[in-house]
């Protein structure tokens, strides 16, 4: 049924490179799109760190250009815009396309032995909806009063006209809605493709874990992104048409009308799964990469899959831990606390499996491997600090401080980002037919990893010391003034982290066009994507392969002493 899934190779430039329905081109489009936005979001982060370390000092280089009316100083409103758009861009326009869009599009058909996604046009629409979302988001920066200032969470009533009448917030909501639509389209596509287009013999338990991660992510996308879509529609209605879903009357006149907490529920029903939406593909990649480069089967494949499934299910029912201080009833609070604690069990299983995969392996410390291992480190750090925030007793104090900022950057940002980097370094040869420089890759890794850990670990300290997040200038409050040294140190490390990404940009661009030509299978890996030649032909597989074994049959004694791996299309010797 799936074998004749063929559409003809396009001939015009437009159909080939712009409005392409080929999953490989769309993957590259998503990758470029995501990387450019990651760059923009990163520059915003640098400006934020500049302001925090040197409140009121003009931003060097960019300041005069971006903030001419203030002589290069970031004014408080622009600061809010910056951190809001930094969050929105990184999550929705950076990691989502780079992780899910690019990786999903590239890996799913190639790793399951399909010729394309099952709905190629929907796939194209998914990219262009994302592109439209990005365009609207970018445009919102330039409307009168500027883009949104309500934080990436966009809590009403600050995000309604009560908080500001500029059009930026409306455009932001529309942008998020469009990006959400893109995610839903992609999600439907991924789920159906994985279910319907697996090559013969590619049973569920022979799927590479990357595909499992992407598959579960897509389920979450399809289930929960519509929730934020509806939240955004209500927000737009409130802003443009004067409804009051979120705007209550004052308590002195009875408190009737809308309810701002409604939005928080809607947002976090989406928002918490969003964390797993970003992290599940990274976990899948890490599971695979660890096994590939430790030359060892992924330890406990079934328990890993099971853990990811359990996390997928649980992620929907723990969202309340974001709202411990909003005024949840004691019963709700305790329930969410318990559920949140329970979700740590499958995560522990994953850690156990990862570490066990490395144990007694034969480690090849390539750049993708380094990034994969660093995910264990940073996600370990981020996940464990989640316990502080899952516990209401400590969350009451730590909520909305830099502790939270450090925590979620390590879990969802750094882990997903390092997972993405690992994936890019790993699949780059297949994507572009050239190798990325390993030397520069290792420099990039170490210069990213060390400052990153420093940046967010200092944030734990400042959060514990009571520094609230989203403050324009911590030196304005006497209580926070003695903490400024932490801000300065964080910023120095953050600038290093930012500078290190230039190495990646250089390496990426140089390798893309001038890199060493890549062999067909540079990593000695047996999954289906490496069975085909480089560059990948339009139909991926001349004949649909028949899968004979699992993806991680490394160092199997039956292979004999000369080789330690086997293609999935090959049969294991008896």
């Amino acid at each position, binding site marked *: 049924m799936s074998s004749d899934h063929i559409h003809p190779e396009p001939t015009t430039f437009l159909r080939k490179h712009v409005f392409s329905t080929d999953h490989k081109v769309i993957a590259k489009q998503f990758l470029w799109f995501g990387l450019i936005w990651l760059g923009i979001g990163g520059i915003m982060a640098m400006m934020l760190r500049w302001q925090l370390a040197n409140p009121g000092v003009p931003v060097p280089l960019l300041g005069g250009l971006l903030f001419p009316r203030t002589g290069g100083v970031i004014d408080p409103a622009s600061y809010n815009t910056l951190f809001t758009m930094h969050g929105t861009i990184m999550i929705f326009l950076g990691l989502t396309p780079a992780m899910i869009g690019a990786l999903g599009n590239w890996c799913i058909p190639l790793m399951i032995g399909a010729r394309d996604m099952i709905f190629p046009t929907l796939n194209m629409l998914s990219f262009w909806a994302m592109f439209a979302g990005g365009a609207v988001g970018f*445009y919102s920066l330039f409307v009168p009063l500027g883009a949104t200032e309500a934080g990436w969470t966009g809590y009403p009533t600050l995000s309604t006209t009560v908080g500001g009448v500029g059009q930026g917030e*409306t*455009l932001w909501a529309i942008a998020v809605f469009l990006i959400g639509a893109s995610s839903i389209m992609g999600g439907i596509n991924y789920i159906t493709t994985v279910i319907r287009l697996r090559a013969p013999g590619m049973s569920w338990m022979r799927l590479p874990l990357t595909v499992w991660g992407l598959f579960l992510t897509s389920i979450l996308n399809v289930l929960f992104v519509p929730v934020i879509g509806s939240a955004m529609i209500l927000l737009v209605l409130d802003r*443009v048409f004067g409804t009051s879903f979120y705007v209550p009357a004052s308590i002195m006149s009875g408190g009737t009308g809308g309810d701002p907490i409604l939005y928080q529920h809607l947002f976090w029903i989406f928002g918490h799964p969003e964390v797993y939406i970003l992290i599940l593909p990274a976990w899948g990649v890490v599971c695979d990469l660890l096994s590939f480069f430790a030359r060892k089967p992924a330890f406990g494949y079934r328990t890993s899959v099971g853990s990811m499934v359990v996390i997928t299910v649980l992620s929907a029912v723990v969202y309340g831990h974001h709202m411990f201080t909003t005024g949840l009833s004691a019963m709700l609070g305790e329930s969410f606390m318990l559920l949140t604690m329970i979700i740590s069990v499958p995560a522990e299983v994953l850690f156990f499996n990862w570490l066990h995969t490395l144990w007694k392996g034969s480690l090849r410390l390539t750049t993708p491997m380094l990034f994969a291992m660093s995910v264990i480190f940073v996600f370990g750090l981020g996940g464990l600090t989640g316990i502080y925030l899952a516990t209401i007793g400590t969350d009451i104090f730590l909520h909305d401080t830099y502790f939270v900022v450090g925590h979620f950057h390590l879990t969802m940002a750094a882990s997903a980002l390092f997972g993405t980097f690992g994936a890019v370094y790993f699949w780059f040869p297949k994507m572009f037919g050239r190798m990325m420089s390993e030397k520069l890759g290792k420099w990039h890794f170490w210069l990213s990893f060390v400052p990153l850990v420093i940046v967010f670990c200092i944030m734990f300290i400042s959060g514990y010391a009571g520094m609230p997040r989203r403050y324009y200038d911590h030196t304005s409050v006497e209580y926070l003034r003695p903490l400024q040294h932490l801000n300065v140190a964080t910023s120095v490390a953050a600038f290093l982290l930012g500078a290190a990404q230039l190495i990646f940009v250089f390496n990426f661009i140089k390798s893309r066009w001038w890199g060493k030509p890549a062999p067909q299978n540079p990593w000695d890996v047996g999954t289906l994507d490496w069975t085909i030649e480089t560059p990948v032909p339009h139909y991926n597989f001349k004949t649909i392969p028949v899968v004979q074994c699992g993806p991680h049959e490394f160092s199997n004694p039956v292979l004999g002493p000369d080789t330690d791996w086997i293609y999935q299309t090959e049969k294991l010797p008896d």
Partner: protein
Amino acid sequence: MLGWGPCFRHMERENSSLSVCPHPQESDPDPPAMRTPSLGRALILSSFLLTACGGGGDTPAPPPGGGPGAGPGAGPGTQAPANGGSGGAGQDTAPEAWSDGAGTATVSGSATFNGDAPTPVQIAMDSDPKCVEMNSDGATDASVLVGANGGLQNVFVYVSKGTDAWTFTAPEEPVVLDQKGCNYTPRVVGMMTGQALRVQNSDPTVHNVHTYPKKNRSSNVSQPAGSKPLDIEMKRGEVLVAVKCDMHAWMQARVGIVDHPFFAVTAADGSFTLPKLAAGEYTISAEHEVFGKASKQTITIGDGEAQSISFEFSK
């Protein structure tokens, strides 16, 4: 994209020169600012335009270039800008100067209060022993003074319409408001625009003279015992501007400012006289500090005639 955010339903703003998006020019052909002619504005605009632009643009722009030589008074004639200089266009004929002999008609009459005269309230002046001392027999609130036959004292009566044909020169000598015995005397005075209100302090204690106008600028200046008199100018006609001393909360006076000399304050029996009116049609208004405005009276009077009108006030 720009047009559809908050502009979905726009509110019209009154009394503002700010326009409403998205099509200000078409939707508001006659900007509100231009509907009320303002002498000052017209002069500013015309002097700018005649000196610098030499003609009207679509919008009242600042003089282009703004060179130092572009001072006023250099251009010939008054050339009204296309939409900015219509200020004076409403008046048909220029008013001529009033001469005292022109009017021979007299309007007189009385203001009465319908109902029981309120019992005077005793004022507690004990915050300032000096005031207590000066009012040793006790002081009562003088805001409402009803005389014989219900005549209401301290009503400000003035011609509110009908004098536009003339311009009047304000007298040189100021109107005097004295602070004496911790009270203003007289309690109600009238004066012409441009005339000075001279407030003097005859008390051995400090007062502050705080005016509460709506159309003119307010002022609040303290006057310790023995200070020089204070001249306050009111440039615009405004009837019944309160003058208060905040230090002695009971001290109040009212000033009626009109741009002509046809005003009067009713006497103890409620009577008043407006002499020297020229023949014509007039609207005469009366206002009391507590009871507010009485209904206006319109009269037509010929040379040498005398007419009588009355105003009634009630609670």
